[in-house]
Each structure stands twice: as C-alpha cells, then as structure tokens.
C-alpha cells in the first residue's frame, strides 16, 4: 500500500483504498460461501478474520456503528487456538445458545462503572460493595452484576482479585519467611500471613512455640512451597491472617498448581476432593488457585512430615540416598498422567470462562478418556468446541429439571 511516513494516508489514497477493499470483500465473500471445502482441509482462519476487518471498516465508514456486529467474538482469553471455519461456527453457535439460556433464566442485571442502579428509595437502601451515591442515586463503581439481599444492594464483580471471607479454603504460595510467620501470595491485594502459632506442628503436640521451633520454620514450609490453609480473619492492623489447624491443611507436593480467575470457583461445602478413580487430590481454592496432586493419606501425614524433616535436617543423609531410592519417591507415571489430564480439563474450562466444579470437571476428564484423546490433544481446538457444546446441553437439561 502506498503509505507515507507513519502510515497516514492522504485523501486520495483513502478513497483508492476503499475501492480496493470493496473489491476484496466481494472476493472473500465468494470464498466464504464454500466453507466446508475450505474449512475441513485447512484452517481458513486468516481469510475469515480478514473479511471481518473489511466488514468493520466499511460499516464505520458508512457511519453505522453496530456494536454487536462489530465486535469480534472473543473465544478465549488465554488460549489462542487455530479454529477452522466449521469449529468457529459451532463455537459461535454454542456461545450464542448459552447467552440465550442465561438471558431467559436470570433477571440479574449487568452494570458497568457509573451506571445507575434502580432502587426503591421508599423502602430504604443499604449500599454495599461496588456502589456509591451520586445526586441521591445509587451508582455502580464496578463492572459486574447487581445483587439484592433485602435492603442491601451490591455489585458482584467478575474478573477481580480474590476477596477473602472468613473460613474460605485457599491455596497459596510461600514467598517469604518472616519472624514467627510465613507470607503467602494468595491473589489478594496484600500478602496473607500464616503465623507459626496458628498452625499445627508436625509432631502434632499442642504446646507453646519456642525459639527452636522458630528456627526450624524452614523444615515446615520453605519459600515457594505451595500451601493449603483457611482464612482466619483480618487483624486490627488490616492484615489478613490464615490458619492451618488441621491435618488436611499444610504443604502440597507432587502435583500442579493452576491459577484461574477467582469468580469461577464457587464457595461450597467441599473444597477438598479425593478422586479415588484417579488417585488424585483436588483442592479448589476459593482464591482461584487450584491444586491437582497425588493423593496423600492425611492420617499418615504426620509420619510423612517427620521422616521428611529428618531427611532435611541431615543433608548428609540425603546425599547418600541412591538414585533408586529417589526414584521411588516420584509418583507413578499413570498418576502423573491423571494429574495432567485433570489440569488440562481445568485449563479448557477456565479459558472458556465456565464455572468450575467437580462434576463438570470429572465429566470433561471422562469425555477425554472416552474419546481416547492424548493429554496434549485436550488443549486442541476440537475438544475445546466440544466442551462448549456439552456445556450448552448440560445447562439446557438443568433448566428443564428446574421447570419440571
């Protein structure tokens, strides 16, 4: 193209270009009319996106700014998949169905920043999170969904950092060891604090923590360890404290940590899941950190940690351990594969933006096994589209059940 300098076009060039563009549209339309031939053989992604650009260009030039048509359908946030023509259409259709279902089912209203939230002032209003008052009106300060509980009106934000609530089960990563405490990264606006005194010692005895315990803190958690704990509450200085006063909490080993947006994990009764079929532990942390790891018998954990700390204390010992012994410490290949499979299922679901729970997750995993997919194939385009379609079916059946 004849551009001068920084890509600024003179008027004649613009007009010139417009002409060529309209021509191109016609040609591309012709290509599009044979989607299957084109699509099944090779991904026609490039030609498709080109047409869209041309479309948006001409629309704007003619002054019609229809947002819905203009906006490219954004399939996913993290994964960039080469979808072919048919897959694109299928995915688009599935997402459209989801949208229709959601609009039918719920009466909830989405708002953006500065939108006025309609309220009945006669009943009295309690303004909650994400709202403020402006000229006697309740105004949203976040993008999200309006929730009403009796008089309380608040905005539930979607893509935001984790907001802790007391009793939440979370997974975090140790980033610093400070006097009598560990600092954990938990996707909150501050680092959380886990006090040495608010966790059970490995020997399981209740007693005062001594200076020796403090010196041995690294034998419990080191930097970069992944830890599971519970939210204890905010201290009066505003810092967030955690506790780990049970065998089920503690260090997590031999597995994968995944991070998803926290709004995808719902607060439930159960966050620890032992998937017996796969010999895998799954922890859905409320903060969007998800742990998939080898199953550990929690009753034996005390012993495990003891033996481990012994090992760590005597570094000489560790050096003398033979290769074979080290190998036996690794988990079985089968279990490792299961872990990866579950992790990939989580990746697919979260990049589609579907909420995560064990049932859906297990269904996804089983589907992949049923189809004899390799683990890496789970992140491919075909499986991705299938999961979207499956979710549509699932939600349709759910709404039917509710009605019936």
């Amino acid at each position: 193209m004849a551009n001068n300098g920084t890509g600024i076009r003179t008027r004649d060039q613009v007009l010139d270009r417009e002409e060529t563009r309209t021509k191109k549209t016609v040609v591309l339309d012709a290509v599009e009319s044979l989607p299957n031939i084109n699509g099944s053989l090779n991904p026609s992604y490039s030609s498709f996106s080109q047409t869209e650009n041309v479309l948006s260009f001409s629309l704007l030039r003619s002054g019609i700014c229809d947002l819905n048509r203009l906006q490219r359908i954004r399939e996913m946030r993290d994964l960039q998949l080469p979808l072919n023509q048919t897959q694109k259409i299928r995915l688009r259709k599935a997402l459209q169905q989801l949208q229709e279902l959601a609009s039918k089912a719920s009466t909830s209203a989405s708002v953006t920043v500065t939108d006025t939230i309609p309220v009945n002032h006669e009943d009295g209003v309690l303004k909650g999170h994400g709202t403020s008052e402006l000229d006697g009106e309740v105004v949203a300060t976040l993008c999200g969904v309006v929730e009403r509980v009796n008089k309380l009106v608040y905005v539930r934000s979607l893509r935001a950092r984790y907001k802790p609530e007391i009793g939440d089960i979370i997974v975090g990563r140790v980033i610093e060891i400070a006097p009598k405490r560990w600092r954990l990264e938990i996707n909150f606006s501050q680092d959380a604090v886990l006090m040495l005194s608010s966790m059970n010692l490995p020997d399981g005895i209740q007693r005062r923590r001594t200076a020796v315990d403090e010196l041995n803190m690294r034998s419990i958690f080191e930097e970069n360890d992944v830890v599971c704990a519970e939210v204890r509450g905010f201290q009066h200085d505003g810092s967030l404290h955690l506790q780990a006063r049970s065998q089920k909490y503690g260090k997590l080993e031999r597995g994968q940590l995944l991070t998803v947006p926290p709004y995808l994990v719902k607060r439930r009764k159960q966050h620890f899941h032992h998937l017996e079929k796969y010999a895998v532990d799954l922890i859905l942390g409320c903060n969007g950190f998800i742990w998939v790891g080898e199953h550990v018998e929690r009753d034996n954990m005390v012993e495990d940690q003891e033996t481990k700390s012994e090992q760590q204390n005597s570094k000489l010992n560790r050096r003398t351990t033979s290769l074979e012994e080290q190998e036996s410490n690794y988990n079985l290949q089968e279990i490792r594969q299961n872990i990866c499979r579950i992790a990939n299922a989580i990746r697919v679901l979260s990049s589609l933006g579907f909420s995560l729970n064990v049932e859906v997750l297990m269904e996804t995993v089983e589907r992949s096994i049923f189809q004899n997919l390799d683990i890496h194939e789970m992140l491919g385009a075909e499986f991705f589209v299938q999961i979207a379609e499956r979710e549509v079916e699932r939600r349709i059946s759910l709404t039917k059940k509710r009605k019936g």
Partner: protein
Amino acid sequence: MEYVSPEGLRLDGRRPMEMRQIRAEIGAVSNADGSAVFEMGNTKVIAAVYGPREVQNRSQQINDQALVRCEYSMANFSTGDRMRKPKGDRRSTEISLVIRQTMEACILTHLMPRSQIDIFVQVLQADGGTRSACINAATLALADAGIPMRDIVTSCSAGFLNSTPLLDLNYVEDSAGGPDVTVGILTKLDKVTLLQMDSKLPMDIFENVMQLAIEGCKAIANYIREVMLENTKELEYRRGI
C-alpha cells in the same frame, strides 16, 4: 500547508468535527489482572493493569490508600522511523505522570489500603493523540481488573488549524505546530481532570475547541461503556449458575 481543503475535508478525508475510527478490546494480556487494546485510527495502544497487589517497595506503602503507578512507553516500531532511544526520556516520564494523576483521580484508592496498582501502557502505533488513547485504554483495563472507580475517564484532543477547530488530530496535524488541546473528563460528574495545551489560542476560540474535545470525550465514553457492558455480560453468561 493546507490542512482543511476548500471542500471541508481534512488530510485523511475526515470532516473537521469527525473523529477517527475507534475500536476497543478487553482482555489482550492474559497474565495481567486487567488489560485492553484501544485504537483511534492508526494510533494503537495496549494497556495492562496489575493489582491491587502487595506494595513492592515497603517505604512507598500508604496506610490508608492504594499506591498507583504508571509507566508509559512507546514501542520502538511505533513511529515512522524506528526509534533508537531507550525508554525513560523526558517525554514519556511526563506522560506517565499525566496518566497516573488522571487515573488516580478516578480510582477509589481508599478502598484498597496498603496495596499498589500498576498501570502499564505501551504505544504500538503512533499517529497522534497517543496520550488520549493511553488514558482511554487505561480506563478500560482498570475496569477489567475490577478496580472500583468513581467515574469513567476518557480523553480526546482537538486543535485549531486553518481557522477551523479540528477534532482528534492525527500525526500530520499534530506536527503542524498549531494549538493542540488534550482534555480528559469524568463523564458522569462532568468534571475536567486533564487539560493540556501546546501553543496559544485566543480565549473565545479556546472555549470552542475545548467544547469540541469534550464532545469527543463523551462519544468515546459511550463507546467504552458499551464495550464494558458487553464484556461483563459475556463473562456472566459464560460462567453460568
């Protein structure tokens, strides 16, 4: 040089009151808490927001509000001839400061004490009006990151060439050396948070030019809100029950 032809068209074929094509997209950087791409014609800007997160430098921690930081940079390939200078020159430090102050005015910082919010904006294609585009992109990225805001800040520039007020100057018009007014407003509160001008203008004309820029800001705000609402709805319906 003639910037407005006798037929009333500008160098790139626009009318004096016409804005360039704008396009915004939320979610361009997967690792960031919030991100957006904003385009005004050939100007293209990407913004990423990290935070609220733990303050990196403890001595900067503020006990009753969040610390807002901003970094503006231009990609080496963004201008016509490849830029050789490394980042950190005077111009980009100044623009970083301007963006930081503008965004700080709209973020409800008191809700996130002892934390820090980092805004990174980078110009991918520069064709005039980069600071306006950066502010618009930053607003979108902040909203995507779920950071509470008082209002939506949008920004737009306007100029005065060939005795005609022109909206949304591009690079050629910008480098003509005429007056260039960049305005940032809080749309709902109708308040000005940013006002910069190069060169001089008579008082009465200035008011016209500024009014034109404000109209531009409002048009951008409408578009931005549409994009945000669309994005929120999509997230919500995808999540399901």
